[in-house]
């Protein structure tokens, strides 16, 4: 059966000799050069907005990174000077290590927890809906708000929730969780993971629910137990959702700032300072805009290294 468009083409304009017949487009007219103005008309506003909101600030940041700007003084061109100083700066090198630990820690914990919860919830989807909503609600809370909540949990005195809970079992227990470098780093990772676990739960749950029911029913019929079901069916077949969750949480953790600002301010002794926080401190507190811009460019490269391959892969899959 030929399409209406193909019929119209056949009756109004007979095919010339030696020229192939137009393909059956299934009801859609093939793209023609005359569509270009309409396409441009639709895409130009987006391109203009993208240029103003993304490309211009990006170019300006890169340009600033070649200048030394201290406070309100006149900028002076220093070429790659800021980058050379940056990589020679032991504080910045420490922030790279802290960023890696924080990013990997938050991503691993939040995705593992979200994935595990998604698989467990899939056994009783209706009954676990309120639970999933509660976990996801944490994702919707602004990081500054959750940061202040964690401040009250981690207070160094006995009024802190964590200290008082432990104090119920160990009399006079009191620990300054945010005053020690090791515990402060892990406190930050746990606090950020708590906020971030909602998204992996949502994405992985959707991936688990997308697994064909016939497969799961067949496994039941074959006598598979829940653990085997999780290991051999749910885990491998929900990996698509896990990959998306890893990608999103990795980017989020890499750019983290708010929760660090509220909980530790980068301390103690800069132990929890990530690249994002370093960038803020240099740009906003010290007002070394050029140096801060160089750190921003480095962070941008790190984000690109993580995101571009993933975007290319996703785009290829979409085709």
């Amino acid at each position, binding site marked *: 059966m030929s399409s209406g468009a193909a019929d119209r083409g056949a009756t109004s304009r007979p095919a010339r000799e030696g020229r192939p017949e137009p393909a059956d487009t299934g009801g859609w007219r093939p793209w023609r050069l005359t569509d270009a103005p309409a396409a441009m008309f639709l895409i130009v506003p987006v391109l203009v907005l993208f240029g103003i909101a993304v490309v211009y600030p990006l170019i300006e940041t890169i340009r600033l990174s070649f200048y030394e700007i201290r406070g*309100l*003084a006149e900028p002076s061109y220093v070429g790659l000077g800021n980058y050379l100083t940056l990589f020679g700066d032991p504080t910045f090198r420490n922030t790279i290590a802290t960023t890696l630990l924080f990013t990997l820690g938050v991503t691993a914990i939040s995705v593992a927890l979200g994935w595990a919860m998604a698989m467990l919830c899939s056994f009783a989807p209706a009954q676990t809906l309120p639970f999933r909503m509660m976990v996801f609600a944490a994702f919707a809370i602004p990081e500054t708000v959750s940061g202040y909540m964690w401040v009250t949990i981690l207070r*160094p005195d006995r009024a802190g929730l964590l200290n008082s809970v432990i104090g119920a079992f160990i009399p006079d227990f009191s620990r300054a969780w945010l*005053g020690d470098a090791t515990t402060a780093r892990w406190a930050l990772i746990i606090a950020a993971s708590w906020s971030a676990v909602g998204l992996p739960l949502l994405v992985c749950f959707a991936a688990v629910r997308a697994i064909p029911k016939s497969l799961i029913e067949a496994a039941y019929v074959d006598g598979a137990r829940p653990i085997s079901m999780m290991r051999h069916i749910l885990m491998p077949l929900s990996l698509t959702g896990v990959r998306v969750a890893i990608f999103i949480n990795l980017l989020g953790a890499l750019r983290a700032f708010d929760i660090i600002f509220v909980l530790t*301010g980068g301390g103690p002794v800069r132990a929890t300072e990530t690249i994002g926080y370093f960038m803020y*401190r240099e740009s906003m*507190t010290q007002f070394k805009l050029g140096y801060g811009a160089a750190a921003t460019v480095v962070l941008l490269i790190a984000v690109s290294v993580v995101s571009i391959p993933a975007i290319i892969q996703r785009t290829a899959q979409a085709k």
Partner: protein
Amino acid sequence: MRRGIHTTRRGRWLAAAGAVLLVGATSLAGATSAADAQDLDGELVILQWQGGVEADLWADLGAAFVEANSGVEIREVVLTGTGDMRGPMRTALLGGEVVDIVINTWPAFRAELADAGIIGPIDEAWEENDWSALLSDSWRDLGALPDGTYGLTYTYGNRSGIWYKPEHLENAGIEPPETWDALIASFDALNEAGYQTPFAIPGQFWAHAELFETLLIRTSGVETATALAAHDIPWTDPAVRGALEKYAELLDAGCCADAAAMLANDWDGEADQLFLADERNYLMIGMWMNARARNDYGMAEGEDYSLFQFPALGLGHDNTSMVDSKEVNLTTNGDNPEAAIAFFDFLLTAEAATILADYGFASPSAEADTSLLGPVQQISTAAVADSEVQFVLGDLLPGDLVDEYRVQLQRFLQDPSEETIDAVLEAIEAKALDLY
């Protein structure tokens, strides 16, 4: 900038010429002042970065000024943030905010604003309004740069005072310590009275430097602090080392919590520990603590809490005190410099001093009635009046250096050993060499 004022005054002089013949020069001066106030109009824009009680104080000061100058409308460009507010202020000013008045507390920032041409000298206004009759030369010097006076100080605070609750010391059977040895000895007495951590050191951001700075001037004088701020002496100088050794002596005497607890709290958290939780006994912090104790904790000044000046070390510099101040700067691009100058003038009046006193802040103006101050403020102002003063060191250092200085002092708190003292001072000096 001053042309507007001159033109207005010339016009009034002509109009009042007949009256001059009749009522004489004294009456004319009064009539001119009143006319000045009547003629002021337009919007007066103030860059406001303070919050809480100080924001309320400024609202009251503004309302009182507007009441006397009904043609003027005050608008505050309010900045919000935590920590060092110079960043948001720079962003606002570079971002095109046009204001008439900048409230400032950092001498280094005053120089930066002046170098960038954002604020201008006020020497002409100073002479015209005879502010020297109300502010002594030392206050003028405090707001000066090498090429002129840029800041008019409206309040100041003692930064070498130690806050305490009389009840704690009574429980321990001791008086506020007047000497270093008495301070050290008081720790045992307080421990026996059930207080495990006598001295609060809020080390999360910057407040742990307060103790070091007073120890620096008490061990080697204000000249050393001035020289250090200008980097005329290195941070590795024995005088600087001596101050840190005294600090270590205090820590070794069991004054304080463990390093993690010190680094986990800022000054407000430690103030809560002292005044609300009764877990600390001494806190060294600026006079804004007075407003917090009165307004936030609802405590009675001089009864529920009090202040004593840092104990004498007996090293020849016990008459020194660290101070801070707040000043107003006049911008070069403001739309209403006449109203700004009038507001500066108002800040030195008895009315403004009374409003400041109501909020627990001291005014340096000769118009201020010190009897209006609460008992704690009176202790503080008397201590400063009797002292050789030095402006807070941290506010005199370049931004980069002050950050390194505070972080290195945190390292010192983690391990106050001889080796750490050397490492800390070398690290600060290395940063200073990059900057000066």
